[in-house]
């Protein structure tokens, strides 16, 4: 794979030399050092963690570091081909294609993309890994927590202006398969019949409003849950298993966001809802609000975030409350309650633009989640250099 990447890049570079106008290579990246500075220990497993990161109680220079190249070739005035290759420290810098699409620019504001691309769920979805493009070191985990961030499919976009308003509308559809880690065990995440819309509008360059909606059929095959689901089914509780498992179940996502950018003052907020019917997955309502103030090239910022969700306890009641089923009931209770959320985040951040394409960032975040089965309190600290070229 590495040899292939090197070969691809060499070929692209050679092509650039030959057709300087036709191929454009740009890139972005970050080197970040971070740690869980306090708490975060799971009493059952002893594992120390902080949500949205892979940090432990040790300092890591690798977990959030990444390097990416974007190669864009213009096929003609309307058509182009773009590939984005990202190597993350978290995945041992193994390069992967996060984008690989053919783009069409039809003029008059119309555009289309076919191939692998970013799912436009959030305000910053399209450039999730380009830390240079947003104020924080990492987007607030209170809302930026979906397992799937890309899809294979097509999208249509239309940009237009009315008075001082600049609007951008998009529709997209496709599917996606990815791997994830759930409860320290491997899992596959599969989205089929994914369709969605997004709308963003900017007024006079200081006010931005955004809305996004998507739905999909979701399947999550998690090794951590398989033995439990098998046991439920083998004892005849197939309806209970079906009410818990995530197997082609309808998932919906709603996101609303806004930004006020008054030169020195910056206010950002996003609210999201995630629902996966016919599964143990709780109905999540979450938001963050960030305020920042620019002092020359330095911007200190403060972010507050919350995630709230009630566990679907009605699933537990589907099992008869008899001593013979005690073990099964306890396992069901554990899984159902584990998806309740009463979480709060505070993040103190700093962005310092040291050059036109380099920003230094600091993030100190605290996380608390207090539910019937969880009492987590964790702090994390991270420093990073983020850049584009």
């Amino acid at each position, binding site marked *: 794979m590495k040899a292939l990447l090197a070969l691809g890049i060499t070929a692209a570079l050679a092509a650039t030399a030959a057709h300087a106008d036709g191929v454009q290579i740009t890139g972005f990246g970050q080197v970040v050092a971070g740690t869980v500075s306090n708490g975060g220990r799971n009493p059952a497993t002893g594992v120390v963690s902080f949500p949205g990161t892979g940090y432990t109680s040790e300092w890591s220079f690798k977990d959030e570091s990444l390097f990416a190249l974007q190669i864009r070739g213009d096929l003609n005035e309307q058509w182009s081909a773009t590939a984005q290759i990202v190597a993350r420290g978290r995945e041992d810098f193994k390069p992967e294609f996060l984008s690989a699409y053919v783009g069409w620019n039809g*003029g008059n504001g119309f555009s289309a993309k076919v191939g692998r*691309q970013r799912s436009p769920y959030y305000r910053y979805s399209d450039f999730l890994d380009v830390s240079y*493009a947003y104020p924080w070191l990492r987007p607030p985990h209170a809302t930026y927590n979906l397992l799937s961030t890309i899809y294979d499919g097509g999208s249509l976009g239309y940009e237009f*202006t009315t008075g*001082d308003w*600049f609007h951008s509308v998009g529709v997209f559809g496709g599917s996606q398969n990815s791997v994830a880690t759930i409860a320290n065990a491997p899992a596959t995440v599969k989205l089929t019949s994914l369709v969605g819309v997004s709308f963003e509008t900017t007024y006079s360059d200081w006010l931005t409003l955004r809305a996004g909606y998507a739905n999909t059929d979701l399947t999550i095959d998690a090794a951590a849950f398989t033995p439990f689901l098998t046991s439920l089914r083998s004892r005849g509780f197939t309806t209970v298993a079906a009410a818990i498992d995530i197997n082609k179940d309808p998932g919906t996502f709603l996101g609303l966001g806004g930004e006020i950018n008054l*030169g020195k003052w910056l206010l950002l907020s996003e609210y999201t809802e995630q629902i996966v019917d016919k599964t143990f997955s709780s109905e999540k309502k979450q938001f963050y609000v960030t305020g920042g103030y620019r002092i020359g090239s330095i911007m200190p910022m403060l972010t507050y975030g919350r995630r709230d969700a009630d566990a679907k306890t009605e699933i537990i009641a589907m099992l008869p409350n008899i001593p013979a089923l005690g073990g099964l009931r306890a396992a069901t209770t554990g899984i159902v309650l584990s998806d309740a959320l009463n979480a709060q985040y505070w993040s103190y951040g700093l962005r310092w633009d040291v050059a036109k394409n380099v920003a230094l960032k600091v993030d100190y975040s605290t996380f608390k989640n207090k539910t019937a089965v969880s009492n987590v309190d964790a702090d994390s600290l991270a420093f990073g250099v983020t850049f584009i070229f």
Partner: protein
Amino acid sequence: MIHRLALGLLVTAALTTLPAQAGKIVVAANSSQAALDKSSAQSIFLGRTASVGGQPSVIIFQKGSVREDFELNVVGRSGAQLGSHWSRLVFTGRAKAPDDLANDAAVKAKVVSTPGAIGYISDDAADASVKVLFDF
């Protein structure tokens, strides 16, 4: 006393940094693009206008001394904020990365040779090869 001195210094600083007419937004002399007002100039350099003079727009930034005045008076954003804005367009595939040329001469050469190209140069660099669309 110290307050009055500080006030005096502030006033002096404010007067000396008052923006002068510092630069011009230009296209090729034969472009059909009409003159711009500030908000349409801003919209072009923020990558929101698909065409210039009926051709797909080719945005040209430059590193010369006129840059700061351009950032302050036309786009109203610092170089870093502008970089961050363009990185969003480029890494979502919505736009090609704009050219970032060395100086006035390079901008004029590119504007004259490229249909749809638009750039900015310092006041005294304007000549018959280019058409001025906006003074800043």
